[in-house]
């Protein structure tokens, strides 16, 4: 019976369709506090159960640095061995950690928050954003530790060290783009979460975390150019450029890094937005 006479759908919006991109982004901006809050409480709740708590943020990259440092100190020789091996290595590992975290957790941004997605109607893009925000918060103690370690290893302190902040910010933008893409893929195709560690590993070696790409590939100019265009390489070599006195990044890194970030962000946002109505389906 439904005794309501002739209602119209004027003023109603179809449920389950994506909003216009501009509306979507302005809504995202309006709810940004949610992403920050989620990131902060995630970070803390993830650390609280551990006895060492916040120390783990720095212990993980530190132990990686020690492991790789010890092994490759003996293995590496010749042109592939960078000058100031230790400093070179720790900058690489610490900065790369930022990417690994964003990439890995970004792929789970939606699928691990299914309940939240099914409870509230916020723009889903806030979830990958909160992943990036959480990883950025994690980077703060890591960067401080990095500075201390560099001082200990005798790197001269300089004003250029401050440039690490904008470089990491641009890298964060790039990471966001990547996270958006994998987050959407992971909703339909969980398989991507199996592939993520593999890609991470490939990039880890392709980026030259513990060896000097220019030295190792001096005889293969084409391959070297390709390696120079690997996005993680750009950011890490820029970080090395500003932090280490004896390293200078190739010019191409300065040009390609912001381009990578911008392209990845635009592609990521559009790609993620197009899948907006379907994120609640994952369970």
């Amino acid at each position, binding site marked *: 019976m439904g005794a309501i006479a002739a209602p119209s759908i004027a003023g*109603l919006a*179809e449920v*389950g369709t994506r909003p216009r991109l501009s509306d979507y982004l302005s809504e995202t901006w309006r709810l940004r*506090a949610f992403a920050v809050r989620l990131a902060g409480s995630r970070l803390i*709740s993830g650390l609280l159960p551990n006895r060492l708590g916040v120390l783990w943020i720095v212990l993980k990259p530190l132990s990686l640095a020690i492991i790789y440092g010890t092994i490759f100190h003996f293995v590496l020789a010749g042109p592939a061995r960078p000058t100031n091996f230790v400093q070179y290595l720790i900058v690489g590992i610490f900065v790369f950690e930022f990417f690994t975290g964003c990439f890995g957790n970004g792929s789970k941004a939606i699928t691990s928050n299914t309940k939240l997605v*099914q409870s509230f109607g916020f723009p889903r893009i806030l979830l990958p954003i909160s992943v990036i925000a959480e990883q950025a918060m994690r980077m703060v103690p890591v960067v401080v530790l990095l500075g201390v370690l560099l001082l200990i290893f005798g790197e001269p302190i300089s004003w250029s060290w401050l440039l690490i902040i904008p470089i990491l910010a641009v890298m964060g933008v790039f990471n966001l783009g990547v996270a958006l893409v994998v987050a959407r893929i992971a909703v339909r195709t969980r398989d991507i979460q199996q592939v993520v560690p593999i890609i991470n590993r490939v990039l880890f070696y392709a980026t030259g975390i513990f060896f000097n790409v220019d030295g190792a590939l001096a005889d293969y100019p084409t391959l070297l150019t390709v390696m120079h265009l690997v996005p993680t390489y750009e950011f890490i070599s820029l970080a090395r450029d500003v932090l280490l006195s004896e390293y200078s990044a190739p010019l191409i890194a300065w040009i390609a890094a912001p381009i990578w970030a911008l392209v990845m962000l635009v592609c990521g946002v559009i790609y993620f937005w197009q899948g907006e109505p379907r994120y*609640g389906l994952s369970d």
Partner: protein
Amino acid sequence: MASVTDLLLPGQQSATLDPAPRAMIVADDVHINYRVYASGKRMTARESLTSMRSFRGGRDLTTVPALRGVSFTATEGESIGVVGHNGSGKSTLFRAMSGLIPPSEGAIYARERPVLLGVNAALVPELSGENNIKLGLLAMGFSPEEAATRVDEIADFAELNDFIYHPMRTYSSGMAARLKFAIASAKAHSILLIDEALAVGDRRFRTKSEKRINELRDSAGLVMIVSHSTSSLKQTCERVLWVHKGELIADGPASEVIAEYIAWSKKPGASAVGAAAAPKPRTKNAPIAVGFDAGSLAESSAKDRLMGAGPVALSSPPEEPRALARRDRHRRIEQQSRKRSVLLMALTGVAVLLAVAAGAIIGTLSSVAAPAEPEPSVRPTPTSPAAAADPVIQSFAANVATVECASEEAEAQVLLSWQIDDADSVAIAAGDAQVDALELPLAAALPANLSDRSVPFSCAAEAVVYTVTAENADGVRVSASTSVTRVLPVETEEPDYDDSPSQPRPSQPAEPEPVTPPAPEVPVEPQPSTPPTEPTPEPTTPPITEPPVFDPGTGATTP
């Protein structure tokens, strides 16, 4: 009951002129098909293990219709209950209304994005209740300051006391449900869909939440509740929908529909899920008069992408434009999925090609890599044929191992033979150790295969090492050497030492000036690499007045 003409009033007019309440949700012929990765039949453990399905990664889709053409309109200020037995599609309907599941056919329109409160919808389990409240408020669009001020109010409403600071995963289902209800109902003017949340709270909380639902309804919200607790539905709702097997079979005043539902559910076998035998329950509240206005839908075609396709006459029965739109939509979906599968195939093809190309590149790179190695390591050339382009010295030997010298000033001739593969230029040298013959040639630009090339032998040295060095086009050099020792005619004999190879060794370093016969115990034993007479590898250092010693030493290094 509204008459059909009422239903067909043009939408715009009814919105402005009619005092009737505004619609909050309009469901237009909603179909939902779940696609499940399942066989759809009973399988034994063995079958499910051996079936190809698990290898294909579960691409075997079975379509299960969960909703089959549900249409209704809910207006502001209403609170609507939904009943039906388990598996009838109530929860699916709610999830579709909140936008979590896109309808496979039909559409749902809402004034505001509906908020779904489900029993099993945890928020963030590892966070404390307090944090979850804040997050929920922020997600609903409250500003951080507002959220901070309202936290206490919501915590009080949920009556969680100190548990508000504990992680949500430690909550009992009732506590979690209370908290979720408290958060979701914090915001007025929303469409609230409550999925069985009321059934879990205790009695006190239930009355409280009923009060809150009434408040929400009064503030022009819409509340829809799924519940099996018909008594609480009767109290909170004035209208009830009855969903049976994905179809809306009754839509009317709460008391009537619930009475019918209860009467039906008491029949034996009625509530079996998917029971084909059970007849469709009969009801006098069949939703023929669903307040859905097809005409207005067609008018607002600018808004509605689907209806805009065909011209719709106002007087035509409402089914016709709907059917048109449905067909249209169906075709479009089909087309899309076809396009997508073609695209997928193309992408797969491209990926395979890329992989092959990458493999080829790696292959060529690694084959190029070998010669360009900056420092090729030591390679035992005579025995092991090396990489294709490298020169290989197959043999290099002198015709004699010892030369009889009349005196230390005498000169003799030695004939050298060699056989070298892949050599561009060949040179020989003589000295007291192996040298690079191309640098200090005795003779250069020699052929790669030569036998009995005569070279001078100077009796001044106790032994002469002849080196042959070959170089290929790429500049890779390989050397081999052989040494020839002199025999001074002090006491010439070459008798019987074959039997005692071990004896000379201790004797040599001990007596540096053996002009006596026992000393020249030259072993003719063919020990390959090291001169057998000396313990040290340098053949030149031993005492000058050596007995004639023979050693066919061969060794090879690349520069």
